[in-house]
């Protein structure tokens, strides 16, 4: 749309996308995030130490014991993806010499640092005082922090989480981790922060964590209802925000999950489906289980492809990367260090392929889903390796149709809307066809 003003062509601004509808819990989360970023960007002036760490194996309660502020580079990359800034950052990182196939979270982070390291609130991030690498199944995490260590020349802790290669946590693994906590992690945290470790303080935080975790599990499992009151993938990403990020163990998290639970309870009671950015979703036609992370650069467009067709995600593996709580694990104040070890060992990224298959199969059955959809991420080998095998095995075990789509985390160049839509529509119609004339899910 153009208009002529004094002989010059002026391009009228594009119509802004309508503001997404938000319920109270979402508004609360927004405030929490804003406060967190303000605390983070004021850390230097407030004499607070900053600890950078990752979502899978995030040790927020422990970090809080040392009065440090948690900064999560993955979450920053996601924020930049959602805010359409990651594309430029990724290209900046490529200009600095990082190849096309490198994890785009890493490139978004490196590019952001190169471009002034500005937080979503418009203020610069402080340099971290500590890099806490709780290595959980993703090899790239290690390389990522190697780059950051080079950049910041700060203290680095490498907490090695043994991979669940045999599909179980052994006592030996647990002890190995506890030893690292006691001999490596805690002493270094004490050294950097100047705060003495107090195990009772940790117990209190873990108690708070468990409380919030109970409510989160209620929310995630509410999707067993028909219709599901939540979307456990697109909506789920908001629901896991506080607990996977900088809030696990806080009163804020308890309050957030309590409010969220009440909202979801009300929706179940009213027989309502999920809330989408455009309001209540229409009739639930397809119930899906999704494996793999979402695309963040076209997040709303991606979600719309689902809710426009009446497709709701009833369970997803991605919402378990920062902790698997729905099979019973809770942070345990009575065994604090062991519980942190179990938490790190059990996150989704640290689980082997058969465990992932079992989990997805369980979701399809327990949540009465129509099938499995895999979103394969171009730059995430950690997730993608073996995904096709997982898909086939789940298909074989459940007899439900599966489909495979491809996109990327925060690189907008790898989101081909027409292609993805085409595949999704084919998949939905495939589910219809499988149901046969009655139209009832098999």
């Amino acid at each position: 749309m153009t208009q002529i003003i004094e002989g010059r062509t002026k391009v009228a601004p594009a119509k802004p996308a309508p503001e997404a509808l938000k319920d109270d819990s979402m508004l609360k989360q927004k405030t929490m995030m804003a406060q967190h970023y303000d605390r983070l960007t004021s850390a230097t002036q407030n004499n607070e130490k900053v600890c950078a760490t990752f979502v899978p194996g995030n040790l927020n309660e422990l970090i809080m014991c040392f009065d440090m502020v948690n900064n999560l580079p993955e979450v920053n990359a996601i924020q930049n993806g959602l805010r359409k800034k990651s594309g430029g950052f990724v290209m900046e990182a490529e200009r600095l010499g990082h190849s096309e196939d490198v994890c785009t979270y890493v490139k978004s982070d490196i590019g952001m640092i190169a471009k002034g390291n500005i937080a979503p609130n418009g203020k610069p991030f402080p340099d971290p005082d500590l890099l806490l690498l709780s290595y959980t199944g993703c090899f790239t995490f290690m390389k990522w922090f190697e780059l950051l260590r080079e950049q910041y020349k700060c203290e680095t802790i490498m907490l090695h989480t043994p991979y669940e290669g045999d599909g179980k946590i052994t006592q030996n693994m647990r002890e190995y981790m506890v030893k690292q906590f006691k001999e490596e992690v805690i002493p270094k945290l004490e050294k950097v922060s100047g705060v003495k470790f107090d195990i009772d303080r940790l117990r209190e935080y873990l108690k708070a964590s468990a409380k919030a975790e109970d409510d989160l599990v209620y929310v995630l499992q509410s999707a067993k209802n028909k219709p599901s009151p939540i979307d456990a993938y697109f909506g789920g990403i908001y629901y896991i925000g506080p607990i996977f990020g900088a809030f696990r163990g806080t009163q804020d998290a308890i309050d957030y999950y309590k409010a969220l639970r009440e909202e979801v309870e009300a929706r179940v009671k009213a027989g309502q489906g999920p809330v989408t950015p455009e309001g209540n979703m229409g009739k639930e036609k397809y119930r899906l289980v999704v494996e793999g992370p979402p695309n963040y650069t076209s997040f709303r467009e991606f979600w719309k492809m689902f809710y426009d067709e009446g497709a709701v995600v009833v369970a997803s593996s991605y919402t378990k990367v920062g902790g698997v709580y729905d099979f019973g694990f809770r942070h345990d104040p009575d065994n604090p260090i062991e519980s942190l070890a179990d938490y790190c060992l059990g996150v989704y990224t640290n689980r082997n392929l058969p465990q992932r298959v079992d989990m997805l199969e369980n979701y399809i059955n327990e949540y009465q889903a129509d099938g499995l959809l895999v979103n394969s991420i171009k730059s995430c080998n950690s997730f993608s390796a073996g995904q096709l095998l997982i898909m086939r095995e789940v298909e074989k075990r459940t007899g439900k149709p599966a489909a495979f789509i491809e996109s990327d985390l925060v690189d907008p160049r790898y989101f081909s809307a027409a292609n993805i839509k085409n595949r999704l529509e084919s998949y939905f119609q495939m589910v219809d066809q499988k149901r046969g004339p009655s139209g009832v899910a098999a």
Partner: protein
Amino acid sequence: MKNFIGIDLGSTTTKAVLMDENQEVLGRGITNSRSNYETAARVAKLEAVIDTRLTLCRRNLRQEAPEIGGQLDDLITRLELGFRLEQFLEQLDDLEQTCMSQIEGERFAGKEKAVTEALQSVFNDLRTEAPPMFAPGAERKSDFFRDIAGSRYLTIAEEKALEAGLAFNLLLNVYDKSIIEVENRPPSEDMSGKFLKTLTHVVKEAEKLGVDKTSVEKAVKQALDVELEETYLVGTGYGRVTLPFSKEHIRSEILCHGLGAHMMYPSTRTVLDIGGQDTKGIQVDAQGIVENFQMNDRCAAGCGRYLGYIADEMNMGLHELGPLAMKSTRSVRINSTCTVFAGAELRDRLSLGEKREDILAGLHRAIILRAMSIISRSGGIKDQFTFTGGVAKNEAAVRELRKLVKENYGEVTINIDPDSIYTGALGAASFAHTAVAGNA
């Protein structure tokens, strides 16, 4: 008569299939997609209706004039060619009028008369040339108006421009401005008129065979009078979303291809479709229901367009690539199926002294290797295996496919239907049928 239509709006061509209540295919139609799906859909549908009339004529003649016997095919061909000629002449008239209306403005100043006369002369020649092109046994490089009229127009116009002392550009300019307009104008729907015009010639041919004139006329006229009721239409293919079809009238091309292949070969379990811009590997069950699929994403390397690009680079016709590649005695290894890199790869190999046919054989192998990777991700090849899409017409591609299937999956029945280009439209027509039957 109730009929059910499926339209497959591909990136290169648009196809239509018309079937009756018993799911018997009565007619097929194809046209170039011309970046205008609405017109393409109308034209393809009209073509399918024309083909349906011919099928009905054939049925009636068999019944009304059994004495025609073995000459039936010949008579039907004459009827169709006569119709095509009328149709061509009608579009030629349209093109002439449109070209004439372009003769205006500065560049034609003072030359209007000369250009008009040159054009008239060009079109007179085109009209004179037309009947032999549509004579039985004559070969045409294409069935699309743009291709037939276009290539001849350019040749004749160049001669005429020279004779009249005009710049060829002037005649080229009016043509360029007109062809898209003419091509996008919906064709005249007066089908019966064109059939009846040609009927007189057909009747004469029939009389030569000792067939009664009235029975032939009756059979054809009855076929033209059958009311074709468009009961339900289903659209599929890339252009489907641009059409004013409601959601119930749209099906994914993956499902349509799966079902279409099943209808052609009911024992099909794996389908490979290589179209203009995508390659699909589809697994279907015994009912033709899709169980799994994979297709190229983010990148259309190794699709039909790749061959089109190679043909352009080599200054050859698309249909000439396969036969040349078949002459190869050793295949050159080509790794990239990236369409953009294809030109560079080709020139590089030529500069190394490789033979054109050997390079082409390598390119065909590269395409099929990529398709094999897509099929294997969809679950591999199960017996029977059906290959569809424009590339299935390319003998060199088929040769490589047969080799690779045998190497990787052993003895598998490979089905390739000469009408495989209609697979998606056939599936869509069947969806249209089931939609009404209440089974969709």
